[in-house]
């Protein structure tokens, strides 16, 4: 019988703990596939964050390093400076990357660290139970913003891919999503491109992926996919915000 689909060899057989309808699983697969297809997996060190993907070190089939909340880009810097020829990536959520770890990611980009950051943005703190994130939309409800994010009190969401795109050391910054097949293919290409650019030591590469959180959004998985398209993408437009390949 012909194999028409199989789990990525870049992932382990450990059963993932993610909620139904959450797109972490898809993003894990895209990252793992990219590493396998580029033949980088055996030479990769991944850095897992604190957040829903805290157990990512059990899921990726390569050497993995846990980091404290927000510190993944600093940990990855340490790893990459020891192993300049290895592929090093961080996998971080919005609380991890855009709140407690803002300084770390901005400065990793500033230094042009040759690492890849996969930034999973679902506009909420998932693991701790649906608190407001820096990327929570104005008006969006969260357990620490029960009436919805009030702009007068909390300002507006942070646009990380755009911010990273402004930094000299960044080689590539893009925002993609995985809510349907065409977008999944684009996300796959973006992640592959980021790793490819890292291999070529071009600088810091950053892929923001708009993701879902049915559990904390209080929506069904299907509604969640629609909410990303209809609402989230209005605030966070998809696109490439920096690509030094294009400039040259």
């Amino acid at each position, binding site marked *: 019988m012909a194999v028409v689909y199989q789990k990525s060899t870049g992932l382990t057989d450990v059963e993932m703990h993610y909620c139904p309808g959450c797109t972490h699983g898809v993003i894990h697969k895209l990252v793992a596939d990219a590493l396998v297809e580029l033949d980088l997996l055996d030479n990769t060190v991944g850095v897992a964050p604190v957040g829903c993907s805290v157990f990512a070190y059990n899921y990726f089939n390569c*050497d*993995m*390093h*846990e980091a404290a909340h927000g510190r993944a880009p600093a940990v990855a810097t340490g790893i990459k400076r020891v192993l300049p020829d290895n592929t090093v990536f961080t996998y971080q959520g919005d609380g991890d990357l855009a709140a407690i770890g803002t300084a770390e990611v901005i400065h990793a980009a500033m230094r042009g660290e040759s690492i890849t950051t996969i930034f999973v943005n679902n506009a909420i703190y998932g693991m701790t139970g649906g608190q407001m994130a820096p990327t929570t939309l104005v008006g969006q409800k969260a357990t620490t913003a029960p009436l919805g994010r009030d702009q007068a009190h909390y300002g507006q969401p942070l646009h990380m891919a755009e911010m990273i795109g402004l930094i000299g050391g960044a080689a590539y910054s893009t925002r993609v999503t995985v809510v349907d097949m065409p977008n999944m293919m684009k996300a796959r290409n973006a992640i592959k491109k980021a790793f490819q650019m890292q291999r070529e030591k071009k600088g810091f590469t950053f892929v923001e992926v708009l993701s879902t959180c049915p559990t904390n959004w209080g929506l069904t998985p299907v509604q969640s996919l629609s909410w990303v398209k209809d609402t989230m993408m209005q605030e966070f437009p998809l696109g490439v915000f920096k690509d030094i390949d294009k400039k040259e």
Partner: protein
Amino acid sequence: MKKELWKGNEAIAEAAIRAGCRHFFGYPITPQNEIPEYMSLHMPKVGGVFVQAESEVAAINMVYGAAGSGARVMTSSSSPGISLKQEGISYLAGAELPCLIVNIMRGGPGLGTIQPAQADYYQATRGGGNGDYRVIVLAPATIQEACDQVRDGFDLADKYRMPVMILADGMIGQMMEAVEWHDSKVDDLPEKAWATTGTKGQRKPNIINSLFIDPNESENHNLKLNRKYEEVKANEIRYEADIPEDCEVVFVAYGTPARLARAAVRVLKEEGINAGLFRPITLWPFPERELHEIAKRDSVKAVVAVEMSMGQMIDDVKIAVNGVKPVGFCGKAGGIVPTPREVADAAKDALKGAR
């Protein structure tokens, strides 16, 4: 070997390079700036890496990443900066990673002062960050000793897979003294099969981690760490005891105050009082049994802790002495250094109290 005049901070940095350290991550703070400055100039010359991080928090996490990848790695800072590093030190301890951390202490709390102090003793010897853990703490009293402890510290860190801290007051960092370099081999550093270096398709993935979500697993991990700490206690205690016969009063001091206590011993001798100095070199593990045996001697009437703090090490002194003799105290804080006269007077007070 030829003697050379070295400033403490620069000597520590040079000693690290000589000990095979090739990765340094730091952040500026007085009075330890000469360490990162020296590293920035000299690391590239030996093919090493110096990175000035965006914060002490980032610096220690770079150390965490580099240590996980098997590097002989180091950071340095001073008190407020070391506070910021505590998160990372806890992770390093939890994930059982070796590294060397240098704290050139200044006065606190808060921004405090840039003048020398020893007010971080609790933080250093009790773990400092969250969780049940220890780091080996080495306390130099001379520049030569600081240099020797750098090599020793890296080796201890590798041997036990745990962070080691050199705890020195600002005076040790800033002063100059003669140093003799004892060149040591660095081509036989231990293999680190656990490091995350890429599987190369040759082995199962390595994971550097301190998260054990299952409480039973978590307890087992803590028990494992504790067994290691007991082993360190059994094997790695270092101290210096200069206790004359008929010693009436024993000073206990580390770092610069140990030197001042030695001066006080002379002052007292001129006044006909026999005093001695017990200098813990490892602050954790503290040479508890060794100090207890000395305190027990019949001639000893009192023990006096001398610190540049309001009294932190004195707790360990009291634990060690365990009530067999009274424990007096001479302490200065906020960057003020006790004079030998003040130290001697504290001894006389303690003796009065003991009679």
